[in-house]
């Protein structure tokens, strides 16, 4: 009895996105696919409890949902329906396990990254349609009002359907590249949001990080020649390999990269990351994620070499800010420049960043505080630490900043 419920929960958790993707590819509509699947899940609850869980529960759900969708469309009684139905019959032999651009999840991701979809809703839309995350959880990690996010998601889904955004890959190369870039940006944003919650033990956020990792691995498997996708995969793996070293096991206080115990880094994952980076480099093209992954590769080398190659990092950062001058990249560059040129040089780099970008960017203030304290400018360092503390929304990071501030000599 309980088995049926547990199995349904497991499938809803693990396979929901895959099933929706697979269905919407066939019925041409995300909303219709979601409706059909939720009805199939309801029926499963009833049928499985009485007859036991079928051998291939996902296949059962897919079949039931598909029949449901066909029934619905039939009742809509439009000429177009029959065409779709024939297509569905033709495609019904395509079952799970396909890879490459045939993978419906990839098609769905491309649809979510369509230029007609509002940029800031693309990542949440992918998370919901491909992974089946509920909108309240997405709202919590993205700091959006759950009600507003729900409306935006509904609007975006309606747009995909009404404006006839096809669930196919863009044929034009430029368009393909641009949308792939949006997909990667969305996945990285999801990972970053998730990774920020590790310290506070935020389970929702931690799962999001794993889900982002899963998404990028899917993209890499489907598009083996997309160098930037492999670059991002490597970048996420490098970051992920340090998960256990990023926070103090007892106090949960954040530990910055340079002070991390390299023995806590996952060397197996680092090897996977290095392999992903090599996969990227076999398809020559220079992109932001490959450069960021290369930067992390240099840091990861500290595990075996025992030191950080700051000259190499300086070169990589100079390349990175040329193609992607984000406030994050510029701030990290300033920190790297300070390692080779001294705090004075680092501060000059920090001051050159656009005030509008840096004003509420916490790492800029934290880096500045750090460099000022190295210079012995205690008063200014105190003020910068306060700015960073006030701008932080993460308790473990705040604890770190407060501990650093307390180390300053008191006048």
């Amino acid at each position: 009895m309980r088995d049926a419920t547990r199995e349904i929960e497991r499938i809803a958790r693990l396979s929901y996105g895959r099933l929706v993707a697979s269905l919407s590819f066939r019925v041409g509509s995300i909303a219709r696919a979601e409706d059909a699947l939720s009805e199939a899940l309801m029926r499963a609850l009833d049928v499985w409890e009485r007859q036991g869980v079928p051998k291939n529960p996902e296949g059962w759900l897919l079949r039931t949902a598909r029949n449901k969708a066909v029934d619905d469309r039939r009742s809509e009684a439009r000429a177009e329906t029959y065409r779709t139905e024939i297509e569905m019959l033709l495609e019904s032999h395509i079952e799970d396990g396909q890879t490459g651009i045939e993978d419906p999840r990839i098609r769905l991701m491309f649809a979510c990254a369509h230029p007609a979809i509002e940029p800031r809703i693309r990542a949440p839309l992918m998370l919901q349609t491909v992974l089946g995350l509920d909108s309240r959880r997405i709202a919590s990690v993205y700091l959006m009002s759950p009600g507003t996010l729900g409306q935006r998601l509904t609007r975006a889904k309606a747009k995909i359907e009404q404006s006839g955004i096809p669930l196919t890959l863009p044929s034009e190369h430029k368009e393909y590249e641009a949308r792939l870039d949006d997909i990667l940006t969305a996945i990285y944003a999801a990972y970053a949001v998730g990774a920020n919650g590790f310290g506070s033990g935020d389970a929702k956020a931690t799962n999001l990080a794993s889900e982002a990792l899963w998404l990028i691995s899917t993209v890499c498997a489907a598009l083996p020649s997309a160098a930037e996708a492999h670059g991002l995969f490597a970048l996420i793996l490098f970051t992920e390999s340090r998960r256990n070293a990023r926070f103090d096991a007892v106090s949960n206080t954040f530990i910055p990269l340079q002070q991390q115990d390299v023995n806590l880094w996952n060397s197996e994952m680092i090897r996977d990351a290095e392999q992903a980076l090599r996969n990227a480099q076999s398809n020559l093209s220079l992109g932001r994620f490959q450069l960021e992954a290369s930067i992390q590769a240099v840091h990861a080398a500290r595990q075996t070499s025992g030191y950080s190659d700051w000259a190499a990092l300086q070169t990589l950062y100079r390349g990175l800010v040329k193609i992607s001058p984000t406030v994050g990249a510029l701030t990290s560059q300033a920190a790297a420049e300070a390692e080779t040129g001294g705090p004075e040089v680092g501060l000059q780099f920090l001051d050159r960043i656009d005030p509008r970008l840096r004003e509420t960017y916490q790492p800029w203030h934290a880096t500045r505080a750090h460099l000022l304290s190295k210079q012995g400018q205690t008063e200014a360092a105190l003020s910068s630490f306060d700015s960073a503390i006030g701008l932080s929304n993460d308790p473990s990071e705040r604890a770190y900043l407060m501990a650093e501030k307390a180390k300053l000599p008191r006048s």
Partner: protein
Amino acid sequence: MQFMLINYTKPSPDATADDVAAAKDDELWGAYTKALVDAGVLVGGEALHPSHTATTVRIIDGVKDLHDGPYADSKEQFGGFYLIEVPDLDAALMWAARNPAAATGAVEVRPVVSF
């Protein structure tokens, strides 16, 4: 748009008004207020005496009814508020997440009606 960020904090570690005054300038609240000021979004805000100092007044069927203590006896108490001016709710939520009360109690974000 103006929003009020209402700080709900754990029942008073600050038992007296002096404690509240001290906490206002302590590291966390002081840093947060400074960040709001530096970003140019702070319109106003106050910290309140601990909730045991509250007196609640009602008039039920014309009969006045007073009692000692706050209106709602909740686990977290209304400890103070910030009034901020930001472009939209998303920006207000970002500031609410930085509010020290978010990590220990709760922060309620309410748009202010403009007349």
